[in-house]
């Protein structure tokens, strides 16, 4: 789920996080001994292996025929084939799930940003009664376990007849997306100099026009990152999706993939190929957003 840094705690300055971008030349130290150098690389190679192996194994398994996956001995390659992907895309409801996830995540993203952008700006620029309480609410919503909202939201959706619709999921995801986006956007707005607002005010722009015509265009990268991250959290959500969606064609990816691995006779060949197709777009989006993400998270907390 979406995640936010508590206001009360002071993370390092934003420069600290941004320093990730350009490795700072390290202070000269005595040269590392060859032994230490080998130990360093050995540790990192092991760590990298641990990080990459599960991904590689799933990818390798996804191009094995089903009969080869069901073998007890380990083999990296076994008559590679794209058959699993063909079955997945033509013989199952996977394309529906994929489309449903895209729609749900996209709407969550758009509404999440739209509902929170002005609030992020107000929290960044103005001191107004209720500001502190609002910040605390954002923090508190991060602590909500899915367990406390899912039942009441479910019963409300059932009363409205929205169960098994995409709208119910978008609405449920907004509970996380809106406070998260407001928090993140506030952090990005904080990095835009106030002098610009003041200049705009001198030129006779009101607060709304300043926001719309001056600050919003400058905050485009921050908005993009927030939007993408919101998209990803909705893409990866499963608890609401499994509870709310009831017919196979309405499933999103998380609920759908689960169908492949029932307790008995799981179809790992479909699961692994599905997993690859789910992860690819998410990973691309992630690597675009990742560099700016930590900076945004910590920047949100530098002022209370």
């Amino acid at each position, binding site marked *: 789920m979406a995640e936010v840094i508590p206001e009360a705690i002071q993370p390092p300055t934003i420069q600290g996080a941004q320093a990730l971008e350009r490795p700072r030349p390290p202070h000269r130290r005595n040269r590392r001994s060859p032994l230490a150098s080998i130990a360093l690389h050995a540790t990192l190679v092991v760590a990298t292996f641990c990080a990459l192996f599960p991904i590689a194994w799933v990818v390798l398994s996804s191009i094995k025929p089903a009969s080869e996956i069901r073998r007890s001995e*380990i083999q990296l390659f076994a008559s590679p084939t794209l058959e699993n992907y063909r079955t997945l895309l033509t013989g199952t409801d996977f394309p529906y799930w994929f489309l449903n996830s895209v729609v749900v995540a996209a709407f969550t993203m758009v509404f999440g940003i739209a509902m929170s952008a002005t609030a992020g700006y107000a929290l960044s620029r103005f001191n107004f009664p209720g500001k502190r309480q609002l910040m605390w609410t954002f923090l508190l919503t991060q602590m909500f376990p899915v367990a*406390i909202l899912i039942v009441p939201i479910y019963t409300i959706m059932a009363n409205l007849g929205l169960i098994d619709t995409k709208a119910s999921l978008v609405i449920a995801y907004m509970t996380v997306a809106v406070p998260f986006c407001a928090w993140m956007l506030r952090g990005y707005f904080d990095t835009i100099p106030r002098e610009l607002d003041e200049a705009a005010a001198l030129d006779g722009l009101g607060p709304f026009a300043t926001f719309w015509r001056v600050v919003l265009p400058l905050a485009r990268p921050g908005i993009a990152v927030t939007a993408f991250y919101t998209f990803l959290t909705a893409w990866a959500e499963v608890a609401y999706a499994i509870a709310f969606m009831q017919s196979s064609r309405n499933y999103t990816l998380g609920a759908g993939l689960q169908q492949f691995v029932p307790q008995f006779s799981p179809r790992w060949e479909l699961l692994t190929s599905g997993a690859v197709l789910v992860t690819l777009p998410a990973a691309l989006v992630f690597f675009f957003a990742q560099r700016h993400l930590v900076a945004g998270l910590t920047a949100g907390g530098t002022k209370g």
Partner: protein
Amino acid sequence: MRKSFDKHWYAWAMVVPTVIVLGVLVFYPLVRGVGQSFTNLNESNQRSEICTKVLGGEETCKPNPDAAEFVGLDNYVDVLTGAQGDFWLQFVNTLVWTVACVTFHYVLGLGLAVMLNREFRGRSFYRVALILPWAVPSFVAAFAWRFIFDERFGVINGALRAIGLDPVAWFEQRWTSLFTAIVANVWLGVPFMMVALLGGLQSINGDLYEAAEIDGATPWQRFVNITLPGLRPVSSTVILLGTIWTFNMFPIIYFVTRGQPAGETEILVTGAYKAAFEGIRDYSLAATYGVLILSILVVYAGVYKRVLAKQGEVF
């Protein structure tokens, strides 16, 4: 009041959309959820009226005689005394799960961050490779690890067999089953810690290290006396966050252990979820769990803040 409104109306107007969403989508359900925890609501008594169609298409409705009713603190008593559900078993699981995951996240993340903070060939390659698990959606990671630990076709048991050991039936014993979930979650969560701590490391003034070196401090002394204190603000934030996220981590337990064996590896969040949506749906039990989980987290965050404040952290 009037003056205050004139001065702040545009700020308030700007936060209105968010406040409405929070009110309708978070606050109202929250109040309802707390309310439900004081009733005996379940799937059979959720209707307040029973409607029957009569000839001619008209509907007559009368109050449901078995409708859910207020039962006071009964649910809380039942849950905490173990009369309903397995609260304490799940509570212990949640503690073990949270402490183990957060500890490994932090220690491994810090170790990797310290290594990556040095200058050496291939550093950016390692950095990208080590972040990759973060890019994998959590439910996909859960399925992947379930597959890896699969008793018959899993690669771990395959490796054990290859070196002549007996395969392990991971999901037939409580602690081995929980272990698989912890491995999966550690794998998933280390990159965030690593990146956050790396950011913290790079904000530490390099002169401090040089001065310490000139004074003859050993690398360990430098780590304990400069690195760790320098990281404190980041550490306290990511540990608090990590604890809350792990405590509420749904997909890993739900897909990796699935509560096997026989619900013994359920944590509180998945326990609540299963109460609400599996078998006979007991909404009031799930709501009670939800309130208890939230209370635990709020108390934890409060204590955590206190302790940090006592140690001189500025808030």
